[in-house]
């Protein structure tokens, strides 16, 4: 049973105090966390080494300006930090990092992870022109109701993995009633316990699992089923695909923010993918007219083929789409089916090998012999 450390401060102040403790006691040499961009211009990830800078940190803020897993991958692509660094990440960001590590796009060495039971994040656009304070307090009020928080990303409202199994420390957020007065940290691993050693606060044993978490899990499961069923009726056949993706402007923003789309040169941005006149000529001979430029549906089907097996459902894609295509719902729905076929759970275990890097001699036996 994990240990629980209860700090007598608000959940935000308590978490910041813990991060400050880690830096001051030199348990870590740096902290990666969300931070206020001055003048209330918004928030962004920062690697902080001076305890004083933590003043501007917003570790639990309900926004995801970029998927943190993608950021950690960029940071560790060529090497790891020489001393421990604490990364404050939401569960899907950790899952993304693990999927990237399987593709040799980063390393876990010298990282400790501080995550949370995650009630979800608001779409990025809600932070512009915004009052971060108001957003934060609206969020806190809703958490205490234990409900699926309205106005958060649909990916979040339908997320079934909001408790990160691999984090060293987990801040308890979901359904907590006293967020203004108390900050509860689950010490989820030996590393987590070592980190918290010496931090002032009340200790007791407590399971992560609780009736509130299970209740919320059921609510999210229902909402997920409803969303996927609705998408299922919209997504039928080529007419459905064109109805959904017809207005795509081909900005490839979805791919650029997707943590799984790490390719330095995406096939769909490369020269071989560009249509030559002979290709248009062929289309015109067959159909009499064509979309220019062509390749919209090919891009999305191709990206599904390339990454849906590892889609961890963070929702960055829908967030950035300039024409409001529900990319994340579509990709998560297909991803779920593909992952089921291969009995694969993306982001859960760094030792679980990618489905297309292995095969079994005895599998899908009925295929091909008919």
């Amino acid at each position, binding site marked *: 049973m994990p240990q629980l450390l209860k700090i007598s401060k608000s959940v935000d102040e308590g978490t910041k105090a813990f991060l400050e403790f880690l830096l001051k006691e030199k348990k870590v040499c740096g902290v990666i966390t969300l931070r206020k961009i001055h003048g209330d211009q918004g928030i962004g990830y920062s690697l902080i080494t001076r305890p004083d800078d933590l003043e501007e940190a917003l570790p639990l803020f309900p926004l995801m300006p970029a998927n943190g897993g993608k950021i950690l991958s960029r940071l560790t692509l060529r090497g790891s930090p020489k001393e421990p660094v604490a990364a404050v990440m939401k569960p899907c960001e950790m899952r993304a990092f693990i999927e990237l590590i399987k593709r040799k796009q980063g390393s876990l060495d010298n990282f400790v992870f501080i995550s949370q039971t995650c009630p979800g994040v608001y779409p990025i656009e809600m932070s512009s022109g915004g009052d971060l304070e108001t957003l934060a307090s609206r969020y806190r009020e809703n958490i205490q109701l234990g409900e699926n928080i309205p106005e958060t990303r649909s990916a979040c409202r339908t997320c079934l993995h909001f408790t990160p199994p691999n984090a060293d420390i987990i801040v308890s957020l979901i359904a907590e009633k006293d967020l203004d007065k108390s900050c509860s940290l689950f010490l989820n691993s030996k590393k987590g316990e070592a980190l918290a050693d010496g931090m002032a606060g009340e200790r007791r044993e407590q399971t992560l699992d609780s009736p509130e978490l299970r209740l919320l899990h059921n609510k999210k499961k229902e909402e997920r089923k409803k969303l996927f069923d609705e998408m299922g009726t919209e*997504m*039928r*056949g*080529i*007419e*459905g*695909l*064109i109805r959904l993706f*017809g207005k795509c402007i081909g900005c490839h923003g979805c791919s650029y923010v997707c943590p799984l789309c790490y390719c330095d040169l995406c*096939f769909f941005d490369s020269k071989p993918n560009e249509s030559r006149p002979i290709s248009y000529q*062929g*289309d015109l001979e*067959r*159909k009499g*007219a*064509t*979309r220019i430029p*062509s*390749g*919209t*549906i*090919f891009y999305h*089907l*191709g990206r*599904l*083929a390339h990454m*849906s*097996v590892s889609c961890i459902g963070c929702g960055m894609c829908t967030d950035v789409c300039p024409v409001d295509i529900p990319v994340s719902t579509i990709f998560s*729905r*297909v991803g779920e*089916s*593909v992952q089921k*076929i*291969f009995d694969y759970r993306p982001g859960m275990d760094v030792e679980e090998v990618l*489905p*297309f890097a292995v*095969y079994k*001699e005895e*599998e*899908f036996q009925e*295929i*091909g*012999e*008919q």
Partner: protein
Amino acid sequence: MNNGFEPNIIGFLCNWCAYTGADLAGVARMKVPSSLRVIRVMCSGRIDPLFVIKAFLKGADGVMMMGCHPGDCHYQKGNFSARRRFMLLRTILDNLALEPERLGLWWVSASEGQRYSRVAEEFANKIKNLGPSPVRGEIFL
């Protein structure tokens, strides 16, 4: 029969088994549908899922992937990859209700000219009954 509709079927055949089997069928004058256009690849493991997607988006009514029987791949493991990629493609098509029956995978060895003829004929008939692909006339792809 369906209004005398002649389908366009694309077949990706591996050089060592399937293509040789198809060649054998030809030499032995076995019946092979004229609607099947064969593309030779060195191994079924070379079949990129994007080839299949591109074929469908260009208006193919059916796509066949063919290679050596599992365990007999000229390059040892290629057909195992092909099998997993086929499952990926079929799952995506199924999830999007894009008629996954229009895609098939068959293991055909170099000596199985008869088998090649049979599966090709059967698939061509199946596609004829399914009718032309709904993708055919779509402009905004």
